């Protein structure tokens, strides 16, 4: 019996080898690491199949599992690189380690589209040696756009606003007052206890809690420090020990002791956070939109009345709110080609194909007549049936396949060459009309056509934003930053969860501990901001 079964094995081997070589002849293969968690490629998707047929390239993808900083550190330590890497905020580490090849000559010779579409940003991308090593994941070749949602906000459950008769909410005190009142009125939602306020504090995502003081002071997301205009020059200031920070943590402390802030908020992880948000019983949370969007999408699908509404909240009415940002390019990170790549010309040609307007249109809008229509003015729109397809996140990812060529790969945003937007979500005449009924109800109540319009117009700053400045690895400023985050991690939960009468004492210790850990960082940021103001 056993022996008879064995003839099968050599045959299998022959099959495997044969099919392997046939495929190898047809398709070029590249290994790509993308620094974002994404399930394995489904094998065949609408856009993926077109791209593969037109380029003859097959990607062997490795997505992020766990922590990106660790992954990049280990990649460098082992010297084992894929052909292309997207390492987000840690891209410059790869360059410092000598893992990246310069792209300028490659682009000059083989990639006319990349050259044309990144022309606006080219100077920002040049490193000290004059070379360009990576392509930011978004380029803005023809002009910016605005989105339906602002990039960050204090979010409030629609039920609260509706119940209170759509009030104007401006300050942190008003915001929490509304939540408190609603909680007193409705201690349970959907049969489970109401959660007043949730703040995310999981590992590196804790900036969702600690970045808030700068926004309460009216600033968009700058990072750990804010450049303030003083006598015609941007001066880097810290906000972690500011009066606003103190007022913010004291408010959270008060709310925690009243049971409004969720007891578990500092020990839950990101999955638990999204799970709670999607349950519809959370009344408020602060976050950057992309970090809570998943929860919002579930709510819009399953419990639209509990959707979150972004609100422009500041510490008091004297503060001028400018929390929105103008879409910008992240010049310190992007897609790169490593020294391990045998065929850099093939790789750059592939990226060049991806970036051209037609490919981008395919990724964002789909196929004309099938996924979108063009009206008599040349503007794109979607029929209700097409819209329904694109509202289903599972379909967009697994059947259409956009995610596999978008977030990590060079792409275009903003206006396109014929007056449409690359992102369907930002097509101006569609922002309102393509919203869900629940979203429209809120927009109507506040008399706006998009949630971004609840906020003031952003201000243009040449250097913006500070957080795209990367620290030299292992430098004193870098070590200081890690220590500072340690202090924040330790003190912030204590500040919020302690008894109100202990707050002052803890605050004094916190200020004493964190002050000395900002000196080197501020020096470095100041130098870089000055440099950007001069050279960009």
């Amino acid at each position, binding site marked *: 019996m056993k022996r008879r079964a064995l003839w099968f094995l050599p045959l299998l081997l022959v099959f495997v080898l044969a099919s392997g070589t046939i495929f190898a002849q047809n398709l070029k293969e590249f290994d790509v690491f993308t620094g974002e968690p994404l399930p394995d490629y489904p094998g065949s998707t609408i856009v993926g199949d077109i791209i593969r047929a037109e380029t003859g390239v097959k990607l062997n993808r490795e997505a992020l599992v766990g922590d990106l*900083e*660790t992954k990049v550190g280990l990649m460098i330590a082992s010297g084992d690189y894929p052909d292309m890497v997207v390492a987000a905020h840690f891209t410059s580490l790869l360059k*410092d380690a000598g893992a990246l090849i310069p792209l300028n000559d490659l682009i000059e010779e083989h990639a006319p589209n990349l050259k044309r579409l990144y022309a606006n940003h080219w100077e920002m991308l040049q490193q000290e040696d004059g070379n360009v090593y990576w392509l930011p994941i978004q380029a803005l070749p023809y002009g910016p756009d605005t989105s339906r949602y602002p990039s960050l906000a204090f979010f409030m459950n629609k039920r609260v606003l509706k119940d209170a008769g759509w009030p104007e909410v401006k300050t942190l005190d008003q915001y929490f007052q509304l939540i408190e009142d609603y909680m007193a009125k409705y201690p349970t939602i959907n049969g489970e206890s109401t959660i007043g306020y949730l703040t995310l504090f999981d590992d590196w995502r804790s900036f969702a809690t600690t970045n808030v003081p700068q926004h309460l002071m009216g600033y968009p997301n700058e990072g750990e420090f804010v450049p303030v205009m003083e006598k015609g020059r941007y001066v880097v200031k810290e906000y972690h020990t500011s009066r606003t920070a103190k007022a913010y943590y004291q408010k959270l402390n008060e709310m925690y002791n009243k049971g409004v802030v969720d007891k578990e908020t500092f020990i839950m*992880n990101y999955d638990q956070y999204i799970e709670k948000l999607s349950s519809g019983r959370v009344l408020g949370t602060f976050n950057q939109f992309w970090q809570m969007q998943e929860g919002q999408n579930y709510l819009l699908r399953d419990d639209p009345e509990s959707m979150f509404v972004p609100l422009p909240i500041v510490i008091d009415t004297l503060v001028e709110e400018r929390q929105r940002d103008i879409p910008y390019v992240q010049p310190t990170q992007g897609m790169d080609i490593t020294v391990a790549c045998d065929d850099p010309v093939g790789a750059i040609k592939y990226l060049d194909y991806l970036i051209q307007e037609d490919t981008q249109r395919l990724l964002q809008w789909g196929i004309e007549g099938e996924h979108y229509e063009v009206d008599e003015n040349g503007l794109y729109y979607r029929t209700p049936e097409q819209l329904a397809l694109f509202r289903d996140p599972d379909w967009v990812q697994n059947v259409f396949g956009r995610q596999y060529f978008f977030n990590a790969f060079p792409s275009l945003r903003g206006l396109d060459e014929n007056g449409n937007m690359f992102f369907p979500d930002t097509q101006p005449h569609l922002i309102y009309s393509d919203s869900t009924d629940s979203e429209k109800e809120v927009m109507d109540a506040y008399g706006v056509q998009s949630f971004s319009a609840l906020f003031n117009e952003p201000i243009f700053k040449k250097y913006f934003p500070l957080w795209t400045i990367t620290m030299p690895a*292992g430098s004193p400023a870098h070590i200081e930053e*890690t220590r500072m985050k340690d202090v924040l991690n330790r003190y912030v*939960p204590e500040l919020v969860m302690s008894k109100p009468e202990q707050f002052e004492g803890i605050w004094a210790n916190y200020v004493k501990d964190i002050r000395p850990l900002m000196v080197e960082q501020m020096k470095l940021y100041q130098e870089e901001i000055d440099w950007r103001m001069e050279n960009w």
Partner: protein
Amino acid sequence: MNASLTLAKRGHVFWQRLKQQKILILMSVPFLIHIVIFKYIPIWGWLMAFQNYWPGKPILQQTWVGLENFRLLFDDVVFYEVLRNTLAMSVIKLVMGTVSSIALALMLNEVRKIRFKKAAQTISYLPHFISWVVAANLVRDALSTDGGVVNRALMSLRIIKEPIMFLGIPTLFWWVIGFSHVWKEVGWGAIIYLAAIAGIDPALYEAAKIDGAGRLKQIWYITIPSIRPTISILLIMNMGYLMSSGFEQQYLLQNGRVIDYARVFTIYELDYGIKMMRYSFATAVGIFRSVVSLILVFSTNQLAKRWGQERLV
């Protein structure tokens, strides 16, 4: 007989025994090679600790900095916290793990119903096979204040009135680590003791019975003394792991609130070493750990020798 003759004879005996045991020696050669390749050759990398290592250059062309990395290490206040946490959690895990495994083995040994015994054993060692990534989420859910099973049980038993936030109280973190370690590893740890118990000569028990020893007395006077060599060998070997109290468990269960009590050497090496590309610094921490571990193992071995116990070398 004079000395040189004895030596010659001894040499002769040595070669004879070598010849006799050549099969055994041949069998151990692959493992020796494995150890040399994976444990001794990497020690070459220790040179990094005395350099300012930067990737992309051969190790001998790096800049040398002497003991600078060790100075940085011993000057760091976090280091002493880390040392305390590592030792505390290791000792808690070692003591709780050993005691609970022995207790479980003794109890299982006394069970007469084979089917129950098998089932109990399988259930108790199943958690060993799930990774900490999954296990940590189970622990998080179980300890949650928002309907976690532990808080619910304690509340319905009227031991506590309000749910306790087990993962949010810094001083409790070591014990969360200790108990979750016991939950995950107790069954697995018991297997080796069960095996040792199975090797005990039944005649000893019969003799004890005739002398009138009950069940408890049999455990105390026969079972425990018989597995004492196993216990002491395992203890000595585990001494070597005192300086590395695990990684995933702490890493996945920690949060900002308890970081002062949760950070162990492995996490420290990651946060302040590898993530910042301070490979030299991480290596220095590693060397410190290895040296201390070696001292610990040898001194326990020495102690065991003095107390007349079974020992490693």
